[in-house]
């Protein structure tokens, strides 16, 4: 890998961390419970991208396995969370 590429990839983390901070803002602030659930779902997908970039920049292939497992378990978790939300009553 060329030097400008590895240089670039180390800056890519900055963007992902800013996006994750925006998601975390919504998790903390969100007026209702579904808002927080949406933000947690997006954080789960962002972490998959994070694992993919880690696997390029460090050259360790097993990071993408973590991403795959994370995608599976975050989907199942969100389904359970949404089923829980459906039976509840939330006002503002």
């Amino acid at each position, binding site marked *: 890998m060329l030097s400008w590429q590895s240089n670039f*990839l180390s800056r890519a983390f900055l963007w992902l961390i800013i996006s994750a901070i925006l998601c975390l803002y919504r998790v903390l602030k969100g007026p209702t419970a579904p808002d927080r659930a949406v933000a947690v779902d997006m954080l789960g997908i962002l972490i998959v*991208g994070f694992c993919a970039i880690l696997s390029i920049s460090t050259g360790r292939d097993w990071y993408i396995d973590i991403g795959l497992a994370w995608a599976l378990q975050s989907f199942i978790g969100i389904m359970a969370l949404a089923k829980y939300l459906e039976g509840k009553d939330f006002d503002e």
Partner: protein
Amino acid sequence: MNETIGISLIVIGLVFDFLGCLGLVRFPDVYTRLQASAKCVTLGTCGILFGLFLFKGFSATGMKALLCLAFILLTAPVSAHVLARGAYRSGVKPCKDTVIDQYGESINK
């Protein structure tokens, strides 16, 4: 050559990820937030994973990246749909700007 295309796909993915999360902060209610983030973050992460596939070629890592891409493309809309339905059933009203609300009418009937 492949690495340059991969880098540019990763840049596009990062930009869309960031814009999706910005939409999550800026939009007024749950449903519009869900629209912005579910579309942009899904395509952004798919772009990053396809960039990883172009980097690694047909190796073990590249194939797992493709599998992960297909999985995210199939499941992200499903979880968005389930969250929207759960939010509506739990009684979160759409924001003030909403023009027509036919789903609310059909539930309350």
